[in-house]
Structure formats: C-alpha cells, structure tokens
C-alpha cells in the first residue's frame, strides 16, 4: 500500500510517500512496523496521540483495520481555515 506523510511527519521521515509491503491488520500494527525500521520513523511516531490517520482518504483511528486499504496517511492535527 502507499503510505503518505504530511507536515512535520513528512519532514521527520524525510519523504512524502512510499510504498510499503505489510501484512499489518490495523493502523496500529502498521505504526509498530514502521517504528521498528529506523530512528526517523521512531521520532515521527513517538507520540501517536499527536498524530491523525486517514485510510483511503478518510479520517479514522489507530484501531482501524487495513484490509483492502490502498492508501494510509499520517499527519498532525489539521490547521485549516
């Protein structure tokens, strides 16, 4: 699946998008896999309460299942308007 990062999450990880092969069942499982990769992922995901997640462009939470998901995005709380 494609994993996207925005704002300071993107800056900490160092790129806006990557393709990830994963059997993770939930968003939380995917986060655990990513954190185990490298320090910059650990830094980005250290405090999950400061993050928001969208699966296939819909806001959801870290318990959400990933079955069939094509796109997962991580970002800080939004500041539009």
């Amino acid at each position, binding site marked *: 699946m494609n994993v996207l990062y925005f704002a300071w999450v993107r800056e900490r990880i160092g790129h806006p998008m990557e393709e990830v092969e994963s059997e993770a069942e939930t968003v939380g499982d995917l986060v655990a896999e990513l954190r185990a990769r490298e320090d910059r992922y650990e830094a980005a995901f250290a405090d999950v309460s400061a993050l928001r997640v969208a699966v296939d462009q819909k806001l959801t939470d870290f318990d959400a299942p990933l079955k069939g998901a094509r796109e997962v995005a991580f970002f800080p709380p939004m*500041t539009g308007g």
Partner: protein
Amino acid sequence: MRIVVQEAPFDLGDEANRFAAGHRDMGAIVTFTGVVRDLATGDLDAMEIEHYPGMTEAALTEIAQQAQSRWSLGDVLVIHRYGRLEPGALIMMVATAAPHRKDAFEAAEYLMDYLKSRAPFWKKEHIGADASWVSAKDADEDALSRW
C-alpha cells in the same frame, strides 16, 4: 455546491457577487473570509499551506454535504488556497445562502469549525530563516462539540 481547492488567489468580491447572483430566491447570504494575519511583532514573511490532494476535496465536500443536511440551505461555496501566502492574502472563504439568516449563519460557522480541524490542511509560519508548523488549538477542537 461548489468546492474549490487552488493555489491561485481568488477575488472575494467576484466570488461573493457570483454566489449571490445565483441565489436571489434566498433571503440571507453569509460569507466568511480568512486572511493571513501578520504576527503581533509584524515579522511574518509568509504562511505556507500544505494539503492532501484528493482527500482535501473529499473532506470539504463531505463537510458541505453535512451542512446541507442539517440546515435549510440553497447553496454552499468553499474556496481554500494552498501554497505560500503573504500577510494580507486571502486564505479561504465559505459562503452560504438560505431562506433565513439563522440557517445561513449557523451553517457558515459549522463549515468553518469543521474546516479548521477536519480538512487536511497544515499551516507553517515562515519568519526570516525560521519556519514552524502552526499547532492545532484546543479551542478549535472544542468548537466541534457544539454541533
């Protein structure tokens, strides 16, 4: 309903006139316009707005549809810019048309409250060589609880 996400500037007057002209059967038209405000110190060079192409349009459309299902509205307009904006630039606008003023006002406030915290935009302030992401405000999250 019209949802626009663009880098280019928009003209508030043109948009307001076009929106109003299409709804002369509505008694009440409300617009909200957000402006890049300089800091108290006067040294903001630019506000950079990042967004999530695709999801942004979907999120704004859903917010506008929610507003239309909750209030008696003739129409809704949302325009939001992204990219680098200088102080004084218009960031975004919403407009609502309704038979009665209460609906037009409430729907516009609802759109703004959701757009602030539920549409995928992120602001970064550039001050000289420094740049920092704007933190979400608790007050903006709390504002959702009234709906």
